[in-house]
Structure formats: C-alpha cells, structure tokens
C-alpha cells in the first residue's frame, strides 16, 4: 500500500475533485482518491503491485486533468 500526493493545477471547480475520484473505478489497484480544489492536489492511496504513479498521472489525463508529482 502506498500514498502519493499529486498536484493538479487545472481543476476549475470543486466538482473536479469529485471527478478525479473516478480514478478509483478507472484503475484497478487505486484504493482511495482524496482531491481538493482549494489545495489543487489529490492524495491517492493505491496498491503499488497493481498500479504505478505514472498510471495515476495517465488516468488523470484521461479525465482531463494534468497531475504532477
């Protein structure tokens, strides 16, 4: 189990945080996504044997967001 904090600078409203939670469904191995529009970041708890940080960044891009470490 690993936790990573990613900066997401292109969220434009508080519901973007809600949208980013879709990573939990999109990627097997993502356990929990906590995103904040106020802080422009998301904290992801994931199983590193199933998913990598790059997968998370790619997943965020698919949802329309730019996530950086």
């Amino acid at each position, binding site marked *: 189990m690993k936790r990573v904090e990613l900066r997401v600078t292109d969220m*434009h*409203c*508080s*519901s*973007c*945080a*809600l*949208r980013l*939670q*879709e990573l939990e*469904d999109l990627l097997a191995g993502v356990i929990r996504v*906590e995103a*904040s*529009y*106020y802080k*422009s970041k998301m904290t992801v708890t994931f199983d590193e044997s199933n998913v990598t940080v790059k997968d998370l960044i790619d997943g965020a891009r698919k949802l*329309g967001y730019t996530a950086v470490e």
Partner: protein
Amino acid sequence: MAALIAALITGFTTGGLSCMAVQGGLLASSLAQLIEKDLLGKQGGRNQWNIGLPIFLFLISKLAAYTILGGLLGGLGKLFQLNPLSQAILQFIIAFFIIGNALRMLNVHPLFRYFTFEPPAFITRLIRKKTRQAGSFTTPIMLGAMTVLIPCGVTQTMMAAAIATGDVLGGAALMFAFTLGASPVFFLLSYFATKLGALTEKYFTRIAAVVLIVFGLLAVNSGLNLLGSRYSFSRLAESVVSALEMRHQGQASATPSTDLVLNVVDRGYRPKRLHAPAGVPLTLTLVTNEVHSCSRAFLIPALDYGVILSATGEEKVRIPPQEPGTILPFTCSMGMYSGEIIFDLSPEG
C-alpha cells in the same frame, strides 16, 4: 417579475453553462451513461424515450430541490432583513462574493478558489456512490436532489440573491426560475454527453465570468442606492442624462413644487428626478396603478422612511424642510430602482 425573468435567462445562459462542468459534466453525463447502459442491457436497443424519462426525472427533482432551497434561503434573508442598512451590507457581501467567483472562473489567482464551496469528502463519496447505483428511477431522482450539495458558482450567486429577496416565496420563485432556465442545457448535455463540456467550457466560463462581474457591479449599485448614496452608478448615469437634457433644452426640466407627485411603475419611478423648494415642508404623493414589482417597497434612506405601497392607490409622505442644494435619494427595497428629490430654492426665491 423582472427579477424572475432575469433569473430564468441567467439560468438558460450563464447558469447552465457555468454549471455544465460542475453538475452537468459529471452527474448528467454519468447519469445518461448509466441509464443508457442499463436500458440497453435490458432491452437490447436504444429507446430515446426511456433514456429521456430518467433525465427528465433528474431535472424535475433538481428543480424541486432548488425551489425548496430558495424558499429556505429567502426565509433566512427575512430573518436578517432588518433595515435598508442591513440590506445594503448584504448587497455588498453579495457583490464581493459574485466578483470573487468571477475572478475565480477567470483563474486570476488561486486565492479566489475560496470563493466557491467545496463539499466535504463524505458528501462527494455519497454522490459518487449514488451515481454507481443504476437500475431504477429512484437514482436520477436522488441525484437530482443531491445537486444542491454541489452548486456551481453562478448557482451560488443566485442563492445569495435568494437570500436578498428576504421572502420565502420570492426566494423559491427565484431559484425555480433559475433552475428551470438551466434545465434545457442539462437535458441536451445528457443526450450529447461528455465532449460538449470540454469543448465549450473554455469559452463559456469566460462569458459567464464577465456576466457575473456585471451582476456584481449591479449589486454594488443596489447597495449604494440603499445607503442613499448620490454616487451609485444609476444615479451618476441619471445625472449625466439630466444634465444633457437641461443643456439641450436650455433650462431646468422641472419647476420646484411643494406638492410632488411620483408615479411608481413596474420598472421604477417616474420622473426619476423631482425638484422641490428648500426650507418648507412638502408632500410627496406616491401613485401606483397595477404595480407588482419591487418598486412598491419604497424607501427614503436619509429620512429612515419606508413603506410597502398597495398595487393601486396613493400614499402621501410628509417631507420636513431641507437645506437648499440638498439631494434626497429614494429607492426600492432591493436598491434596483432609484431616483432623487433636488431641493433648489425657497418658494419666494
């Protein structure tokens, strides 16, 4: 009535577009996808009516939820609506909130992000849980009601306006009109789904932000009117128009009189500028004839005078002697409509 039409148009244009990414882009598209998937699985083919019905239920539920919310906010406003000063302060707070939200939408500085409401994580999780529970019509109804928990910037602005109405029915009607106006966008979005939000967001967010700034300035104007300020935008504009008229006519446009008559109409007061003699008491007669707008709630802030006029009738206001050159502004209780009495000369002068 004018405020309701404005709310309807705001919903149809900026409201619908601003909320597109917040509620439409997420809930409506998720909803449409889920419904479509569910119904295709059951029926083996596309049925436009069956897809449309849950979306319709979603919108009806949303409309009902926001109407109730508007009523509650209007009631809240009534509790705090004490006098013109408190209303003016409320208008300034609304203006601050609106302009801050507009600057947030224009991405001016990260600080402006705090002008929007970020729902707690447990609420977002609850909403997401519901979006995954496809299969019955109760889901779109629940999701529609839950959109009150994630209002977009323009919706939040309209919620502030609902508070400013200071009336349960007024607040409910305002939110009903706004949500009704935004509904077609949601309906279309649910059919044409996710791509539309991304394509249009860039442009329409900016348009919505500019419109919000205009609304913010209007709220500042209302606040200044309620304070009886001579420097509200509407009064300054009126002064310019009046000066141009006088220059054009080569003389004052009105003769001072101790018996003033002011016609109260749906769109304000006629004439907007009255001339009266200084140093003598006078009578201002307010005349209404089938008037149903907020212009009926008449205030003279400097005299701490306020009255709710009947839809049709006359009301006489005693005005004590004023110094020459005094300008006595009057306004409606919302600060939307205004005018002034100018005390020129004594009757002998």
